[in-house]
């Protein structure tokens, strides 16, 4: 059995590991760290915290899968109505970089119905090959056939890396594929890199609400799979001179079968930009006081071409639908600019937006915690600041 050990000769009793343990499993006894097996989950957080290499996790020698003939980088490309989604362009951009670092091909896998143009588009976006599965049964995303097909293709062509979006679809599909392929999957990565010496993928992602970052590898299984957070990687440029190969694949009835079916697709009537797609988000909280005051937030969002978000307090009050909620029980966002209006900055809200590049906070309480993460904090009344800010931005952006 694998286990964790404190190497007593090395442990100096500094206690650094105590505060690193998310489970409170480490105590100091006689100036040595002691791990409580009843609490420890072998998560490994303490290992990196120890400056003296005194903590060792021993993993039993496991059978290594034969990984030598896995080659190439794959992107699972999402499409809607034949249009490749922006998250997939981001994956193509990142996938191209990884493929070039490894000196291998980049391929995209796309499924749907009537997706010819999308295949061509993927080549312009950097794919050397596109594996396309076009079938009426695949028109809407369906977990089971999509997962079977993806796993079958992986088995046949053996890519070493497979990337998907950390979107609603990616987060439903890719985990099932990873189980079928008996390989590791790292969720929601914000940075990917190749360790050139070992030819492995270094996958970095936030955990504990962005309070810590973890770098994860998948050393003994292939493909190495990761889902990637929207809006952190750069979209691949469209180069219409690029050449590539489209490989059409078809599958039998059993593979295409599904026990779920989409009866209806409802697009919620908003002409507003989607939260997860937005470069700029303007969010309102309880400080907006009433639903009708959200027009101030919307006006500002319009002036800068942004999306509208909300704190849980505003959503719970029924001022905006849940789909707008940012935070621990809502969406995690990381736009270039986040403007928080009348939001106090409770930790549950902060974990959903604190990795935004630039944060503007508007709050009349100078002690509000939101100011701690703000790049610019304006202490003032939203009902005065928002119209002034909107006007100034309209003048500047010329809208």
């Amino acid at each position, binding site marked *: 059995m694998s286990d964790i050990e404190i190497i007593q000769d090395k442990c100096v009793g500094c206690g650094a590991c105590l505060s690193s343990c998310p489970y409170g499993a480490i105590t100091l006894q006689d100036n040595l760290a002691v791990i409580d097996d009843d609490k420890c989950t072998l998560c490994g957080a303490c290992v990196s915290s120890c400056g003296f290499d005194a903590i060792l996790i021993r993993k039993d020698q496991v059978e290594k899968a034969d990984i030598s003939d896995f080659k190439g980088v794959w992107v699972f490309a999402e499409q809607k109505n034949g249009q490749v989604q922006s998250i997939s362009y981001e994956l193509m951009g990142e996938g191209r970089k990884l493929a070039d670092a490894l000196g291998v091909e980049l391929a995209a896998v796309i499924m749907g119905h009537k997706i010819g143009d999308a295949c061509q588009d993927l080549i312009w976006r950097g794919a050397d090959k596109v594996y396309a599965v076009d079938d009426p049964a695949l028109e809407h995303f369906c977990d*089971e056939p999509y997962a079977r097909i993806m796993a079958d293709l992986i088995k046949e062509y053996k890519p070493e890396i497979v990337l998907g979006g950390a979107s609603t679809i990616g987060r439903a599909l890719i985990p*099932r594929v990873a189980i079928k392929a008996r390989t590791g999957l790292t969720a929601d990565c914000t940075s990917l890199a190749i360790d050139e010496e070992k030819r492995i993928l270094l996958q970095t992602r936030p955990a504990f609400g962005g309070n810590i970052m973890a770098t994860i590898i998948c050393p003994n299984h292939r493909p190495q799979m990761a889902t990637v957070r929207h809006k952190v990687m750069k979209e691949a440029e469209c180069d219409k001179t690029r050449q590539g190969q489209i490989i059409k694949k078809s599958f039998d009835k059993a593979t295409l079968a599904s026990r779920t079916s989409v009866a209806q697709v409802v697009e919620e009537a908003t002409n507003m930009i989607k939260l997860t797609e937005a470069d700029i988000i303007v969010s309102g909280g309880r400080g907006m006081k009433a639903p009708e005051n959200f027009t101030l937030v919307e006006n500002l969002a319009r002036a800068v071409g942004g999306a509208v978000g909300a704190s849980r307090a505003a959503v719970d009050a029924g001022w905006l639908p849940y789909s707008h909620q940012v935070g621990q029980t809502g969406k995690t966002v990381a736009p270039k600019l986040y403007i928080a209006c009348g939001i106090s900055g409770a930790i549950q809200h902060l974990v959903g937006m604190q990795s935004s590049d630039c944060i503007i906070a508007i709050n009349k309480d100078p002690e509000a915690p939101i100011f701690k993460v703000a790049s610019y904090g304006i202490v003032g009344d939203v009902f005065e600041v928002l119209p002034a800010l909107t006007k100034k931005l309209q003048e500047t952006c010329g809208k």
Partner: protein
Amino acid sequence: MNIVVCIKQVPDTTDVRIDPATNTLIREGVPSIINPFDMYAIEEALRLREKLGGKVTVISMGPPQVTEALKEAISMGVDDAILLSDRAFAGADTWATSYTLSMGIRKMGGADVILCGKQAIDGDTAQVGPGVAEFLDIPQVTYVKKIEQIDDKKAKVWRMTEEGYEVVDTSLPAMFTVVKEINEPRLPSLKGKMKAKSFQPTIWKAADIAADEKNIGLNGSPTNVVKIFTPPVRSGGIILQGDINEAVATVVEGLKERQII
């Protein structure tokens, strides 16, 4: 109807503080809670039972202290609780966790509906629900915000998407992972609290669920954490008080400089 809810005990991240001297996290004394999304899964299970009859069982994989979380579920009205606890399970990534939970559920004799939270707030992966569904070879609907219709054999549910939602028909048994919008979790009842006090979960070890040791814990996990680090703490920005027009002008200048607008 047999309903199983997978719940995870997580450290209450919102209680995590930063040590200003060392810039590291202070996690000592951080209380453990039931993963918030799993509370919605428990509530939905109780509502299904109220509508259709049957039994609600929660299952969790984790160290013995998870018993506390299971007792809390019992106090809300859950019928029974199972704890998969074995040192050999420790260090499991989502692959091994999904395998272990699925073996536990198999041992229970399966279920008509399995509910999970959308994601756990410690790992934030959202992978375990679909993973369990795959191991059990049952259909799944993720991000469920409403169960519109359900009987013994099938269900019609609403699945939240980036644009709105989809109405999805599925046969049962099925896995649903739920979002916050689905309901408002109830508080524990007095009767529930009484029951929870003396309640002890059934504890199963690896051998009890016939788990293959190659598939559990650290050994069964394809992924390894190689490094954990604290992201750079956001340095405080500029706080503007006083004249609003001046403040607004400063901010807009700053945005221009940063080439955001």
